Every structure is written in structure tokens, then in C-alpha cells.
């Protein structure tokens, strides 16, 4: 697992990248933008969250490693549940509202974003608990 970890200072970089791309994603809703910009910013946002996720804690010992593993396990399972349930919910909502929208599948961004957010929040919660 240690081989997939970055130094502690990458967490700060991750936060800056995540917040900057999030702000830009909101900003481009109000201005004309090229078609490639939104998927590009989605990608940057995921990279930012990944940097936070894989950067080391101040003291990265075996206990933190076990908390990290727990958070990855939960995020993995919930992301699969999300990927399975989300299209059904989408379909049900559009059926109930009698919208003529074509059946839209979720995109990879939604699932990966959900997975990373669940992992980070659960990891922080576990760290706070102990």
C-alpha cells in the first residue's frame, strides 16, 4: 500500500486543485465555454480528490493504514451500490414526472466522484472517532 502513497504536502496540492476546479465548474455554468472544458475540469477535480486520498498523514502508522483500508472498502462497496441504483432512480424519477427525457445512464465522473468523497469523509470520521 505504501507504494501508492504520496508525501504529506500533496494533500495541500490536492485541496487547491479540488477547490479551484470546483469553483471553475460553477463559474462555467454562467459563461459560454467550449464543449471539452466541463469534462476536462471533471478530470482535474477527480485528480485533486485522488491526491488528497493517497497522500500520507502526519504520522502514517499501521493504525492509520487500517482506518484507510476500512474507508476504501466502504467506498468501493457503496460506489457499486450507487452505480447499480442510480440509473433505476433516474428512470423512476423521469417516469413519475412523465418526462420525455431519454433514458440517461450515469457517467464515470459521478461514480468516481461519489467513491472518492465517501472514502475521504469516512476516513476523516474514523480518524476523529479515535
Amino acid at each position, binding site marked *: 500500500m505504501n507504494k501508492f502513497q504520496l508525501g504529506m504536502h500533496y494533500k495541500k496540492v490536492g485541496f487547491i486543485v479540488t477547490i479551484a476546479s470546483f469553483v471553475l465548474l460553477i463559474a462555467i455554468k454562467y459563461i459560454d465555454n467550449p464543449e471539452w472544458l466541463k469534462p476536462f475540469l471533471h478530470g482535474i477535480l477527480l485528480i485533486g480528490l485522488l491526491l488528497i486520498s493517497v497522500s500520507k498523514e502526519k*504520522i502514517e*502508522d*499501521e*493504525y*492509520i493504514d*487500517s482506518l484507510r483500508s476500512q474507508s476504501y472498502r466502504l467506498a468501493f462497496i457503496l460506489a457499486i451500490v450507487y452505480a447499480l441504483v442510480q440509473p433505476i432512480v433516474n428512470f423512476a424519477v423521469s417516469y413519475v414526472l412523465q418526462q420525455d427525457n431519454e433514458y440517461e445512464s450515469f457517467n464515470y465522473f459521478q461514480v468516481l466522484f461519489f467513491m472518492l468523497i465517501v472514502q475521504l469523509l469516512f476516513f476523516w470520521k474514523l480518524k476523529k472517532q*479515535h
Partner: protein
Amino acid sequence: MRNTLKVQRAILDLTQEDLAKKIGVSRQTINSIEKNRYVPSTVLALKLSTLFKIPVNAFFSLEDGD
């Protein structure tokens, strides 16, 4: 698994922070072991054993259901 880490720590007159520094972990790790929320690895158990100068069995013991 039960442990008497707190007692051993008191014998050596160490705080959680002191013990954590001596064996290279965080204070939260020591706290979690003492509260039986975390079972340490063999490596960590042996480090504690070396520090306390007693065998691992003397401060870790199995509970029913382990």
C-alpha cells in the same frame, strides 16, 4: 483481545505520547490499543515487548470468542 498496556505504561511512568514516540506510532494508535479498539500487528507487539522487557503474552491475552 485484552491487554494491560495501560498498566505497563504506568509502570514505566510514560504518557501515551511518550510511548507512541518510543515505538514510532501516533498517540491515537496507543489510545486505540488501550481501549481495545485496535489489535496491533505482531511487529508492534514485539516492539512493545522489547520496550517493556516482558513477553508479549504478559500484556496481551485472548478473550472468549477470539
